[in-house]
């Protein structure tokens, strides 16, 4: 259930269940009461702040839709509990020695929910639709890299790339579409399947009441075995406070908590009696990014000074109520690509001032630094409606004032923020966040060729060694080689501070404790959802199959 195949900016601070990831449980992941053997039955009610916008994940981009689609569909590959790729609809795969050809061996025991067999024709069909100009998808690019695709027999699928391309493998986590139901629909987004999906996944679609809820029933013929929980309700509750009240009154069984809810509103004996809270490192980080062509920020000493001035501990305590950790680079702590031994910038206003003095900035009459008659004043931008980022800005403002830097804060509505400021490079500095994917390829964010309009290297970072390493990292399947490249990239980024990496938040899911079988792992809790169960004695909802 928990796969996040792609990166996207997070305009809100709330990550849905689909975004949970690795770590340790706050309380043992065991349910309450008599722990009986696994039993079929009962229902789980999931709270979601957004409605589904469609079930074909090729044409949707929001977390709610992707989470819903994950119940119904499968990809050829998926991330396992340790965030390593494993086969899903593909039993296994081979990569040719030159790294250009991937051969997928498909499972033979898979059926679509309507009973039709799943074959390589479906995979070929999905691939063709991903590159079809009539498909309004934002994810076609990885599939356009394919030089040749072939389905030699019903259970083999072969793709050839022009050059070895490591992120390509993860792109085959894209949900496979049923050819026999979609071939009549040139535009899949307008097909009935986008509203009433038929997939191969653990749950079958039952009902979607727009703006209210989506209902799924366990798929008895699922190739990994019938899921224990008989029914899943996903309730749309746009307000976090309302959702929390629903949780307490039994209207919701699983949701993500906010830091205040986690630390202050759930520490009662009564709450602990009914719920288990979990805590993991989220796949996301927040940063302060500089426009590197700005005369102030061109100097690496100035950026390092700001890194020293920023009190990351205060940020984590103030913004996340302690539920987070310091970010040192663009990778998730605890994953294979993350380098824990890079240069750190402890909070040290004295050191910050010294570095700034070295760069020629001297205190003026009112304490604000100045150089060549220019005062050190700039504006940081962030998107409106994101409380965490607004608080971050306020704390940073105070931190920088201690170092003699005057920072103004401006919040702008998301679309205007992106189009008028980020895309046009009309900013001094920004506070933003990235979601990170298990695959460490970040070519689009750091490569010097990606600084054009609408491209993602919006700070304008350019470093020849990083460029070379990014290329190296994505063009081999050798994990050791990739690791070396990404470790070095993190060292360079830590030294040069094109972003001041601020913090990595925790995902804070809570689950009613009649659910057993939850085993927290680096990938979160929902990766083994089909194995969750409610012992017969504790079942709450009677579901007629």
């Amino acid at each position, binding site marked *: 259930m928990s796969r996040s195949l792609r990166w996207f900016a997070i305009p809100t601070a709330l990550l849905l269940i689909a975004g949970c990831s690795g770590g340790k449980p706050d309380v043992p992941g065991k349910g309450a009461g008599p722990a009986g053997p696994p039993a079929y039955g009962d229902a789980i009610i999931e709270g979601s702040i957004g409605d589904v916008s469609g079930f074909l994940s090729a044409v949707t981009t929001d977390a709610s839709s992707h989470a819903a689609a994950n119940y119904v569909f499968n990809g050829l590959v998926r991330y396992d509990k340790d965030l390593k790729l494993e086969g899903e609809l593909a039993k296994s795969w081979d990569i040719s020695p030159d790294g250009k050809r991937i051969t997928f061996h498909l499972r033979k025991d898979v059926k679509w929910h309507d009973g039709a067999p799943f074959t390589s024709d479906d995979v070929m069909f999905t691939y063709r639709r991903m590159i079809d100009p009539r498909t309004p998808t934002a994810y076609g690019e990885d599939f356009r890299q394919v030089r040749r695709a072939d389905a030699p027999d019903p259970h083999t699928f072969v793709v050839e790339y022009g050059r070895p391309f490591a992120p390509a493998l993860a792109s085959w986590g894209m949900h496979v579409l049923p050819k026999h139901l979609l071939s009549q629909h040139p535009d899949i*987004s307008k097909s009935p399947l986008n509203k009433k999906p038929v997939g191969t996944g653990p749950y079958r679609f039952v009902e979607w009441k727009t703006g*209210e809820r989506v209902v799924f029933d366990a798929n008895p013929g699922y190739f990994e075995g019938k899921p224990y929980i008989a029914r899943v309700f996903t309730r749309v509750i*746009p307000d976090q406070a*309302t959702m929390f009240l629903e949780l307490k009154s039994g209207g919701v069984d699983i949701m993500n908590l906010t830091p205040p809810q986690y630390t202050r509103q759930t520490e009662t004996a009564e709450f602990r009696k009914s719920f288990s809270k979990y805590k993991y490192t989220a796949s996301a980080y927040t940063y302060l990014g500089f426009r590197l062509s700005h005369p102030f920020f061109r100097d690496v000493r100035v950026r390092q000074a700001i890194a020293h001035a920023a009190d990351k501990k205060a940020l984590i305590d103030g913004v996340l109520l302690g539920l987070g950790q310091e970010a040192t680079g663009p990778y998730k702590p605890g994953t294979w690509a993350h380098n824990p031994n890079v240069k750190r910038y402890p909070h040290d206003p004295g050191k910050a001032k010294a570095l700034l003095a070295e760069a020629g900035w001297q205190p003026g009459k009112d304490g604000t630094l100045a150089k060549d008659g220019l005062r050190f004043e700039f504006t940081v931008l962030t998107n409106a409606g994101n409380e965490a980022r607004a608080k971050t800005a306020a704390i940073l403002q105070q931190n920088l004032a201690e170092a003699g830097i005057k920072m103004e804060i401006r919040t702008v509505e998301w679309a205007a923020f*992106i189009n008028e400021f980020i895309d046009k490079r009309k900013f001094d500095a920004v506070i933003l966040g990235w979601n990170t994917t298990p695959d460490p390829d970040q070519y689009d964010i750091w490569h010097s060729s990606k600084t054009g309009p609408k491209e993602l290297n919006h700070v304008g970072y350019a470093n020849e060694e990083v460029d070379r390493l990014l290329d190296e990292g994505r063009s081999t399947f050798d994990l050791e080689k990739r690791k070396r490249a990404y470790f070095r990239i993190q060292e360079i980024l830590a030294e040069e501070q094109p972003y001041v990496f601020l913090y990595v938040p925790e995902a804070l899911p809570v689950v009613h404790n009649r659910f057993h079988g939850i085993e927290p792992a680096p990938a979160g809790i929902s990766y083994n959802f089909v194995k969750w169960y409610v012992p017969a004695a504790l079942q709450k909802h009677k579901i007629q199959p």
Partner: protein
Amino acid sequence: MLRYILRRLLLSIPLLVGISLVSFLMMHMAPGGPIGAVTDLNPKATAESRARLQAYYGLDQPLHVQYGRWLARMATLDFGDSFSPDGRPVSEKIRERIPITLTINVLSMTLIFLVAIPVGIYSAVRKGSLFDRISTVTVFTGFAIPTFWLALLLMILFGVKLGWLPISGISSLDYGSLGVAGKLADRARHLILPVLLAAFGGLAGMSRYMRSNMLEVIRQDYVATARAKGLPEGKVIFRHAMRNALLPVITILGLSVPDLLGGSVIFETIFAIPGMGQLFYQGVMSRDYPLIMGILTIGAFLTLLGNLLADVGYALADPRIRQA
């Protein structure tokens, strides 16, 4: 009278076109566009895929062509397809939201009128009395209290502590398996809190309006005349004063017509009600042009219709206007 109505209806067509043109231009002037939600900060979205999406939605055409296409479709009452990933017809998306929004608005408006008119009249008649002062404080409290805060307090009391009422949503999970009576009861239980809250916030305006109308009418000569004739006070108030004080309410009713299909975003978000307010808000945030235009056009049409109805209603109720 009929000719007057016909003339007003015909005149409203160019007005509607004008409103839609202004809305269309304003909408396109707002930064960002429909495909931004999909492609902004998405490393997988290249310039090429962006251009492809632009062409897919017809956004690569000049503005006047886009507006022309929209207008041509509108002429056949076709609102077009939404730009959101589900690509469903706008009319369908609006239609499925209307019943719940309309229900809540009609119920809360009825409640407002039922409570506010007597309260306003009584406050006017007993101006300065204890009742007048208490009701004034109460209705203004309702007006001033932030809805979302009061809503949460009521949810905690009735939903969590007492467990009498559902907290949010408009139907229970087992709604489909209930009988007709069960369905009605379930709906009613879900609607109690939202309707009460919506009405509480709206009491102030209506009751104060009624009160000042009544105060003005009571001071009129014909009321003094009625009293001088020796009519009992009840008859003076209800027969002579109240009927005249109620006249301006017709205007308010007319102006409320567009509100029937409008919804408050905050309100619907708190109660998880899939109504028009949320639909429009999401449409605006994702720059779903056809949906925005559809809702704005319906709103404009209802506003014009409401004005017309108010004028006609007034003419029917007040002979002086009819003769003029």
